[in-house]
């Protein structure tokens, strides 16, 4: 198995170095080193054991959040990797990009309050993911920071039913900061190798950050 982890970088991505360092910080336990993947270049889908799509404002979030990044060359390789079963984690803008790319169901629209929200949120694990934060037990709690303007998860009723029936709802908010359908904070695809959430685990790794619940997301 590959010993490399790919971290995607789009113009406007701004949590790229934070995620890169979080993956680096986990090297002692995973032995897997991070490597940059540039938006304009295709990459070898077989070469990485996991891929991270960090948060930010790719292409300024112009048009729609994540819409332009979803159509970049690097995302074609992400699609191939996802089809091969490579674990992919999207955080914040990464979640938006994965939805825009059709790799995850639903969409993320403007927060219900129409304002950007920066806060700590309490989350509940609805269904475990085999790779990311896999040590957490279903029903367990986590506290992570959010910082987003377009974080309200929306999906049609039948789509929501499918998500729930298939166990694709990953995390839910105890108290939604954005008005998401069914308080959804994170979802997975059917195979569960593509997962994403709006909160930022890379900002909750050490006690001095205010919490440590994010570390399991990088221990892959």
């Amino acid at each position, binding site marked *: 198995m590959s010993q490399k982890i790919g971290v995607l970088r789009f*113009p*406007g991505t*701004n*949590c790229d*170095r*934070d995620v890169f*360092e*979080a993956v680096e910080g986990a090297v002692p336990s995973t032995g897997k080193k991070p490597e940059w993947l540039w938006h304009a270049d295709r990459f070898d889908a077989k070469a990485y054991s996991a891929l991270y799509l960090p*948060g*930010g*404002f790719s*292409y*300024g*979030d*112009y048009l729609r959040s994540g819409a332009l990044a979803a159509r970049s060359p690097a995302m074609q390789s992400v699609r191939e990797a996802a089809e091969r079963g490579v674990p992919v984690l999207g955080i914040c803008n990464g979640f938006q990009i994965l939805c825009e790319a059709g790799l995850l169901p639903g969409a993320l629209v403007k927060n219900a309050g129409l*304002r*950007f*929200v*920066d*806060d700590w949120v309490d989350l509940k694990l609805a269904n475990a993911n085999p790779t990311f934060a896999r040590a957490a037990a279903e029903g367990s709690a986590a506290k992570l*920071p959010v*910082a987003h*303007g377009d974080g309200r998860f929306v999906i049609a009723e039948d789509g929501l039913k499918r998500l729930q029936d298939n166990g694709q709802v990953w995390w839910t908010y105890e108290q939604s900061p954005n008005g998401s359908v069914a308080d959804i904070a994170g979802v997975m695809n059917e195979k569960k190798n593509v997962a994403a959430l709006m909160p*930022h685990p*890379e*900002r909750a*790794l050490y006690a*001095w*950050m*205010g919490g440590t619940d994010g570390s399991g997301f990088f221990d892959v």
Partner: protein
Amino acid sequence: MDRGSSMSKATQAGEGRGGLSAQEFQAKLKTYRLNESEYGLICDLLGRDPKGIEWALFSALWSEHCSYKSSKVHLKGLFNTSKRVLQSFGENAGVVDLGEGERVAFKIESHNHPSYIEPYQGAATGVGGILRDIFTMGARPIALADYLCFGRPTAPRMTQIVDGVVRGIGGYGNSVGVPTITGQTEFHESYDGNVLVNAMAVGLFRKDDKVFLSKAKGVGNWVVYVGAKTGRDGVHGASMASESFGADSAAKRPTIQIGDPFFEKLLIESCLEVMKQDLVVAIQDMGAAGLTSSSFEMASKGGVGFKLHLDQVPLRDSSMTPEDILLSESQERMLLVCEPGQFKALSEVFHRWNLDAVKIGEVTEKKTVELHWHGELLTEIDPDLLVENAPQYKRPYKQLGPQNRVSSRQAWVDGLKSAQGAKKIDGLLTSLLRDVRGTSRKFIYRQYDCRVGAATARGTSDSVGVVRLKDSNRALGVVLGCRPHVMRLDPRVGGLDAVAYPAFELALKGFEALAVTDCLNFGNPEKENVMSEFVASLDGMNSICAALEAPIISGNVSFYNETMGKNITSTPSTGLVGLRESLDHLPESFFTEEGQAIYVLKQPGFVSGGYAQEIATGTQNAIGELDGRVVGDFIRGARQLSKAPQVRATRAIGKFGLAYALSRMCLEGVGAVIDHEGLKLIRTDVDQAALFEEHFYEAIFVVDGKDTTAFEDYFTAVRQVAPIAELHRIGRTGGTSLVIGSLLESSNKDLKTAYTSGWGENFESLA
């Protein structure tokens, strides 16, 4: 040059000049915001009348905003150096050495006038501009902070202005990915028609990062334009910001710049990359007065000339004239000098980030800036004439003595009593917690990303913003200062306080204040009282900076904060950066555990009726005097005491005095009981006013209840540093309410309700 004759001509008012009729001449002076004596000086320097484009050049670079013509004589006396200072005034930002290879650049800057005219874009471009000042030096921006002064919530447009400014700051800062880690927000009627938006940015140089300067050098090197295309936005912005507002401020909207944080993000990454590869000789952002100031300043500082082809400047609108191009304040643009052989590598980096790098000129030996336009030489002019030779005014002022002093505290004891009327004292406390001047600012801070960068240890919910220095595992503290109500009490005390209070806040968390940046927001400098307050507050500021050895290393001056003849409260805002050896045992700011001991650390000697007196009676009084050196020692002592291992939480007792500070500490759920005997130790008269008056300076220390003897022993050593300091045990933590002797009892729940609901009561549509 015939100095005499040209001077005499200029002083003959009412006469035409430079081939213009008297009427045309006066109209032109008005358009370019120059006066007749300045025109005379220009003629002296040139040895002839200015022609064509030169009018616009002098108008921009001799504006108050660019030339500091009313303040320069006073700024020269500022305490601005220490062994840590690597770069002070004269560059885009000041740079301080942190040791261990790390250095920080930081600066605060105003964007007041644009933010009043067009709140969202005004505030957003304020953030963008201050960020460019930082990364243009090669530092990666790691923190933002905003100092905001708004008018009364009921003032015309104020809801819209508050909303727009906050959205603008968030919209820009969040997108570029720099955390906003602290801030200060004030409300007062003097800002009804002229709000203040001051943005501060801090950037970090890691061990191998070089500091880049704006000094151009190397004859034959290329002058390269990088970033967004030039448009018509912001033309004449610098001179707009140098004028008072009249009734027509809305008509000035076209002088406002439009920001694009996405472009800025690309600029940050690409500029830092070309600097890392050492492809840059000199660099400066295009800020106020755009291409004009950047090019003339770079040439002047380097003692070289530039040959510039204005027709090569990338334009958004092909019909723009050379004057538009020179004065445009379009955002997200940089000017740099590189060696011709490096241009290819440099432009490849910019192209990778989807940005253009265009050669627009060359560095020349002859010290003149030549401006070319499609083969025509528009002017050739010595850059020093514009950059160094602007007039310097010694505006009239008076030396101010102590203001609003009284001999007894009866002035505010009576005042507060009458304001309360039938209201009980807990009523006064909750009314202050609900008042827009005392209530929670969470509505604002929730809209700013305070953790991007994954280095934030303390954010906007705390008194000091703290980021971790990744390479050395140390901590950097950032805090803003200037309490306008203290400026209204006494401008010298207010200036001193603008540095002392934030330095005290840093010290209470164990940080040593390293240096200061200031943003001097004042009214019309042509008015004697404004200039007198300017001089007095700088004097106060200087005394404490020297005492703390925390020099002022960067900043700006914003005059003409005047609307329809009404001046703002003189507001010299500050930003301080402090260093702490680690993040361990960083004191909290709240009561978090029961059974801990509560102490007050105090410097006796100066007390005022404070903000509560001002709100109640419209006036403020004080007893005593404040000495910079004594305060400096006290702050050093406070820092030492905060490092005592028994300390759990600290908080400065600031506006609204003791009761307000204690209630803020109760917001996390744990309450406190303050004994009557304890109160008597820190207040000569234990009455209701004693809970609201403001003592300069005091702080609450929460100490492990089991270990108070060790803590008191520790204080004995502190007395060596600060002989004047007093420490008194006044109570303990516990319970679910705040009890202050027999004077006050209020449940934490009621305090929290008041503190969190006040915002919505003042700004219904912003809740």
